[in-house]
């Protein structure tokens, strides 16, 4: 039962352009959503989050959008840089009921110079 899904295993973008990573979820009880970035041989690093009471959160070049009715969130990176090349994981949490993070399968982003 895959409660959090990232349907695109990979994405290739030109440097300077926008990267859009997508994530879908099925559990309407999730109240917190996060994006993690992972480089090879390292653990995931927290990037940005959004609570279910918001529909947008912005941090520098990174913006996360949440569409609760569609059970969909996306991460926008503008402008994309070669250093952004990594695997991005979407995660969801029912923070009010214990807080475990449930992860998607990940999307490998490649930003080409």
């Amino acid at each position, binding site marked *: 039962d895959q409660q959090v899904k990232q349907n695109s295993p990979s994405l290739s973008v030109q440097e300077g352009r926008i990267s859009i990573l997508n994530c879908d979820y099925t559990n309407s009880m999730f109240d917190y959503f*996060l994006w993690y970035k992972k480089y090879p041989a390292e*653990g995931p690093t927290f990037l940005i*989050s959004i609570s279910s009471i918001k529909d947008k959160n912005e941090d520098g070049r990174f913006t996360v959008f949440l569409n609760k009715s569609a059970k969909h969130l996306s991460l926008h990176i503008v402008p994309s840089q070669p250093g952004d090349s990594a695997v991005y994981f979407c995660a969801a949490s029912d*923070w009010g009921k214990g807080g*475990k993070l449930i*992860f998607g*399968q990940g999307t490998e982003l490649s930003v080409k110079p």
Partner: protein
Amino acid sequence: EAGVAQSPRYKIIEKRQSVAFWCNPISGHATLYWYQQILGQGPKLLIQFQNNGVVDDSQLPKDRFSAERLKGVDSTLKIQPAKLEDSAVYLCASSLSQPSANFGPGTRLTVT
């Protein structure tokens, strides 16, 4: 602030052998998680501790996996006996009181 520490970083064992992983969370973090990440998949929660009590171990294969967190600080995860399908990266994470968690570098286990 020191990050989450894990050891060893890499381990190769034969099937049916035992293995143990160690995690030292960020100081003061009450919540500790162990995740299993199989190649090409996202991390899957194995067990969650709050201080030294278990909050969630519903996906821990208890016939072969065990974990403990003595004194609410360090934690160990053990596999006995190991199977080929246990080959994965085992990630430890900790958090204070927020939804995000800090992850360690992981232990890559190869079972041959």
